[in-house]
């Protein structure tokens, strides 16, 4: 029941907002729905991490510890972005553009809905439909500004993601074939596939996983299928960029992780590990090349997402207790820090009216709160202590040096390159003289308050590893076969 309401709240909100006329009502519905989604999500996560497994609609929906982790990320960051979105949309779209504001809030909740379906369903096919749904729900959001560049970004995003996801369908069908041919009876549930994994046709499973990595890897933003990502993430409105980078990429990864559990059980862990380490390393490499001298701060954050998804893939590939634990932690940490930074990038954009790094001068002086938070967020993102990403990256590479020293060493070197490149860009933005005609003070200052939650979590997870979280993550690790 609770599980169904988690899905129905955003869906109903989306429908209701679509028929409202007044802005105040729209915003009220939006805020209430976001908080209700967060509350329901928290209740579900608490239950599941206490050992329960929730199911709904027969065997269509099933939430285990891994799904619960995703529900936690989606509902928490969804709520943060939702609160900021109210202020941001007020600043960007005045009452003359009310219909676009309505479109934004409608699609916002539809987007949350599709992501929640993707991570709570037990059925491979429904998951595929929902992940394609995330593309369809966000494509108009990417084009919300309706400029030539946003149009271009949205079209590329739509075409490339649709093709990618189509390839993922081949993988799904092949695995389905491997499962159905064996069991005789048709079963496309994760639980059933896991149980039958030992006896699946190995050839079909290997080929299926290649398609899955290419297909869902496109959604996760892995190189070389990442080319849509910097465009879409930089053109989308800030709250949506925050969700696309922080949350949607993780949904793509989630799909890969689910398939990986079946593949590991069917053909041994070595096959998936090699594939993931290769593609992870390549993603970090490509991101590093574009981060060395990036001219646009939103694109910089987008390429940094490619880098971090690559690091998470490395963790998944290195495997073992520490590799997987690091990967899961890094999913959370990257989501927290990247959504924070993308929201702040919205503030910078409203203040300076440009996404070019060279146009942004003296951020610390011109907009102290935004600048200070941006500085701290960037420190977290590039992996400086005491913030949490430092811990998870440390754990991942610790696992890497144990069993894949060369890959781990290459990864660390690339990380240093990224570190230097991003620090230089940050430097150019923070200092210098702000443009003379720029009024001092932060845009949307009160709307930044929810970001305190991101910060608190980044610090807590960086300074201590709460034992309740480790217990929860160990339940996830058990699902991953450790």
């Amino acid at each position: 029941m609770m599980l169904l309401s988690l899905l129905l709240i955003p869906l109903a909100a989306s429908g209701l907002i679509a028929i409202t006329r007044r802005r105040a009502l729209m915003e009220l519905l939006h805020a209430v729905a976001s908080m209700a989604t967060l509350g329901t999500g928290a209740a579900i996560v608490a239950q599941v991490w206490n050992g329960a497994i929730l199911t709904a609609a027969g065997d269509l929906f099933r939430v285990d510890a891994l799904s619960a982790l995703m529900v936690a990320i989606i509902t928490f960051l969804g709520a943060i972005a939702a609160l900021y979105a109210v202020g941001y949309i007020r600043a960007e779209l005045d009452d003359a553009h009310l219909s676009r504001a309505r479109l934004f809030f409608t699609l916002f909740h539809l987007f949350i809905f599709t992501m929640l379906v993707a991570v709570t369903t037990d059925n491979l096919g429904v998951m595929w439909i929902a992940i394609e749904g995330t593309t369809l729900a966000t494509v108009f959001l990417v084009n919300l500004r309706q400029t030539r560049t946003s149009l271009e970004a949205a079209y590329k995003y739509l075409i490339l993601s649709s093709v990618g996801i189509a390839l993922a369908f081949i993988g799904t069908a092949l695995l389905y074939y491997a499962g159905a041919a064996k069991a005789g009876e048709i079963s496309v549930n994760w639980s059933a596939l896991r149980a039958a994994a030992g006896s699946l046709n190995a050839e079909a499973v290997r080929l299926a996983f290649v398609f899955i990595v290419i297909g869902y890897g496109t959604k996760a933003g892995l190189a070389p299928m990442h080319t849509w990502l910097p465009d879409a993430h930089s053109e989308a409105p800030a709250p949506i960029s925050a969700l696309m980078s922080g949350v949607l990429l993780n949904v793509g990864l989630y799909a890969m992780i689910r398939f990986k559990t079946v593949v590991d059980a069917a053909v041994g862990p070595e096959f998936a590990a090699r594939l993931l380490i290769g593609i992870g390393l390549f993603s970090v490499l490509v991101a590093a090349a574009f981060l060395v001298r990036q001219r646009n701060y939103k694109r910089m954050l987008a390429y940094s997402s490619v880098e971090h998804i690559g690091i998470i893939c490395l963790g998944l590939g290195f495997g073992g207790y520490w590799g997987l634990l690091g990967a899961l932690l890094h999913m959370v940490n990257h989501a927290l820090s990247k959504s924070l930074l993308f929201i702040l990038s919205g503030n910078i954009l409203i203040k300076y009216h440009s996404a070019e790094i060279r146009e942004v001068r003296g951020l610390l002086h011109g907009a102290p709160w935004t600048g200070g938070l941006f500085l701290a967020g960037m420190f977290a993102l590039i992996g400086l202590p005491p913030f949490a990403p430092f811990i998870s990256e440390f754990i991942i590479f610790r696992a890497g040096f144990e069993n894949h020293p060369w890959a781990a060493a290459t990864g660390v070197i690339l990380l240093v390159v990224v570190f230097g490149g991003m620090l230089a860009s940050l430097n150019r933005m923070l200092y210098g003289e702000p443009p003379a005609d720029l009024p001092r003070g932060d845009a949307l200052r009160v709307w930044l308050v929810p970001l305190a939650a991101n910060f608190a979590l980044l610090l807590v997870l960086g300074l201590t590893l709460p034992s309740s979280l480790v217990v929860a993550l160990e339940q996830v690790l058990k699902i991953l076969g450790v």
Partner: protein
Amino acid sequence: MSVEVLSKTVNLLSFAALGLTILLIVRTSLVGQVRVFALQSFVLASLSVLIALYSASLELFGVGVALVAIKGVVIPRVLNRAVAKIGLQRVAAPYLGTAPALIICGLLTIVAFYVMAPIAASNPLPTADAIPLAFAGVLIGFFIMVNRRRAVTQILGFLMLENAIFLLALLATYGVPFIVEMGVFLDVLVAVLIMEVFVYHIKDNFDSIDVGELGNLKE
């Protein structure tokens, strides 16, 4: 219906579907290309109905009917409307001309047989022989998308790719479950409708639907 008859008919229809994919490269009129796609959807629908009769599956029969309705009638109409509205009859020159493109199709078909033959051989279903043909359709559909400049023809490439994937799933497993297949059709329909909107936007903004013009977002 005996197994041999089914197997032969399935091979024949799958071959026809692949032939239609390749025909898309040769046709230059947009209306003609939309017709090729509609025809291919009908071929695939008759294949599903055939297999539905053989395996006595009501679900698969329903899939065939929905396929005709969505991909055989509704989507071709949407595309024809778009073609009429943007007032464009001919296909712009793709990056690679017809002759080299056909050679690449041949090569991709060989690759498809090389990759898929072992998998098909281990599949006990009587439809499995045609799996490499379906996979060739996937690769060629992918190639068509990459090779095209105009938004409308890219959408056609995407739809051919979708059809090939449908065929692959149909041959390998008698299709995925009904509810999933319906969801997939719905997604494809919505995707095409959104793409149509974008074709108009691109036309308005760039005064052309050559996606080669979309080059503002660069490093």
